[in-house]
């Protein structure tokens, strides 16, 4: 019999986080399981995509039974019920398997639509498979073409344009004001979770100089140590405000923390350089009239959420176009592979077992 291209696994679309946690492969488990797979008869090629949202196997199997055997081995290895896995699994064959990989790599299948991190994870999965020598001519071609097509979709559609999380929207706005963030001085007012997330988003985009000020100095020091930042006693921040470019406010104070006058005094000391306030607190920390001050830019939580929503809507509007492009690419690639490697038509047992609309994630 000729081999069959397949994908089999679970992801966030049908599998809740509690089950994904049970099925996730740690580095040690991954090595151990791949060792088992290397002895699985009929499995010619395979790669494993293991992220926080999915565990998916991509492979070339001699028969449909080989795929079932892989599923059995995986459930046994993880101590997971085969019946339960069958209820949540997602798998697809041949052209649909290629289409699935293309959509995953392009971010169409991601929890955060259009995110780009997934392509790097797919590349890592492929690199690991190459290191294990578990990929051959078919998967090599499929993965290499996938990277090319995913990039094509990103550049020809707006699927990845605009940030869709509040923290990343704030960072994007900061780059519109300051350009490169490496030299920007950032002050976190408040040491809560949202401030922490925003600080990390800034660091991921090159920001190096962070200072944390909180009413509880020990909390400020604690967060500062995790962020590799400096801590500032809360009562001192107004005196140092002019030294900062970006101020992320997320205190739990019931009243305004940053007044318009404080901002006016600070901007007088640095009139040529803008001052950007990101007010993530509820109730708001920054007096709204600050937005009227020349060279001061103020965005609150609602403003950022609105931008994120608009960006998400714009990405969603592009999904249909992106999927059409990928369908065309999947067809072409499948025809090439089918012609070159002559795999058979889809095994009856698998196609009957899994309706097509379940094969590809919506």
């Amino acid at each position, binding site marked *: 019999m000729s081999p069959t291209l397949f994908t089999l696994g679970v992801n966030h679309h049908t599998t809740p986080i509690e089950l994904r946690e049970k099925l996730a492969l740690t580095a040690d488990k991954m090595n151990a399981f791949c060792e088992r797979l290397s002895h699985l008869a009929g499995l010619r090629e395979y790669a494993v995509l293991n992220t926080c949202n999915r565990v998916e196997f991509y492979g070339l199997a001699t028969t449909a039974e080989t795929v079932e055997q892989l599923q059995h081995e995986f459930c046994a290895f993880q101590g997971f019920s085969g019946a339960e896995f069958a209820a949540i699994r997602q798998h697809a064959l041949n052209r649909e398997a290629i289409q699935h990989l293309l959509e995953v790599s392009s971010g169409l299948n991601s929890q955060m639509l259009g995110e780009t991190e997934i392509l790097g994870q797919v590349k890592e999965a492929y690199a690991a498979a190459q290191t294990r020598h578990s990929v051959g001519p078919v998967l090599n071609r499929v993965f290499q073409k996938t990277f090319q097509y995913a990039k094509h979709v990103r550049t020809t559609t*707006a699927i990845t344009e*605009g940030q869709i999380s509040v923290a990343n929207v704030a960072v994007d*706005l900061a*780059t*519109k*004001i*300051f*350009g490169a963030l490496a030299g920007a001085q950032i002050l976190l007012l408040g040491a809560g979770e949202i401030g922490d997330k925003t600080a990390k988003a800034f660091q991921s985009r090159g920001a190096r100089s962070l200072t944390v000020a909180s009413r509880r100095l020990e909390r400020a020091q604690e967060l500062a140590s995790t962020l590799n930042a400096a801590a500032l006693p809360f009562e001192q921040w107004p005196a140092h405000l002019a030294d900062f470019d970006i101020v992320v406010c997320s205190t739990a104070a019931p009243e305004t923390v940053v007044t318009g006058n404080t901002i006016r005094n600070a901007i007088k000391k640095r*009139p*040529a*350089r*803008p001052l950007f306030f990101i007010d993530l607190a509820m109730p708001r920390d920054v007096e709204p009239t600050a*937005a009227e001050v*020349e*060279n001061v*830019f103020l*965005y609150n939580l609602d*403003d950022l959420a*609105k*931008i994120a929503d*608009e960006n998400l809507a*714009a990405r969603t509007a592009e999904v249909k176009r992106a999927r059409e492009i990928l369908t065309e690419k999947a067809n072409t690639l499948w025809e090439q592979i089918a012609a070159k490697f002559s795999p058979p038509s889809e095994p009856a047992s698998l196609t009957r077992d899994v309706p097509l609309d379940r094969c590809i994630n919506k």
Partner: protein
Amino acid sequence: MSSIPDRTWLWFAATFYLAGFVLGTVALLRERRHSRTWMYIFIWAGFVFQTCGLALRGKAVHGCPISNLFELFQFTAWSATSLYLVIGPTFRLSLLGYFNACLSATLTFVSLLVPVWDSIHRARTPGSSPWIEFHAALALFSYGVFGLLALTSIMYLLQVFSLKRQHLRGFFSFLPSIVDLDHINLRLLTAGAVLMTAALSVGYVHWVHDRDSVPAIKILVTGSIWAAYAVALILRLRGILLTKRLAWTCIVLFVAALFSLGIIESSRKTPTAVQTAASHE
């Protein structure tokens, strides 16, 4: 090359600048970033054709082709474009190519579409100093720098408007950052002021030897433009003229500089028709 009239070369140049402007406009209307490669190709092509046209002009008038209002506008557009081609890749300011194509297309088309601007040519005094040519070319080149400064100032104001009013999508999403624009504005203002100072210094040396050769209105208008830019630069360096006020000042001053070209040209004492390739058309 010489078989083609200079105005034909300049029409080609204007068409390529316009093509760059159309390319950028279409991309922006579709909310896409325009192709940087194609923009460069169009602007380079326009620049090459304009250089050919102006070279023919220069050959005909035996000097720098700045002998009437038509040539002054053409030379200003050429200066701004040559500067963009030098600094564009260095600063990588998105949309600057688009704005430059817009400015150059406007200046070249307007000058080509007003025949009266090209009907009279100032005669050159036989044996006149090459320093005068240098002075005039340098002064016009500084106008090109100020033209580019006006464009980056417009971009600055648009970016501030975008961020203050939270209009961030479409056209606005392609604008460079405020800080980057502020830096380039300061550099262009400095460069333009230095070039114009040098140009006027050369002109001054000539003028003290022959005070009748320069109309008083020219001295007054040119000196005012130079003083205004010099004051703007000093106020910027001292932290007094900043942000939007500086940007508006640079735009208003460039418009005034363009108008000053007309005033200077009309103050010429003895306009004389000179045979150029243009008359062959």
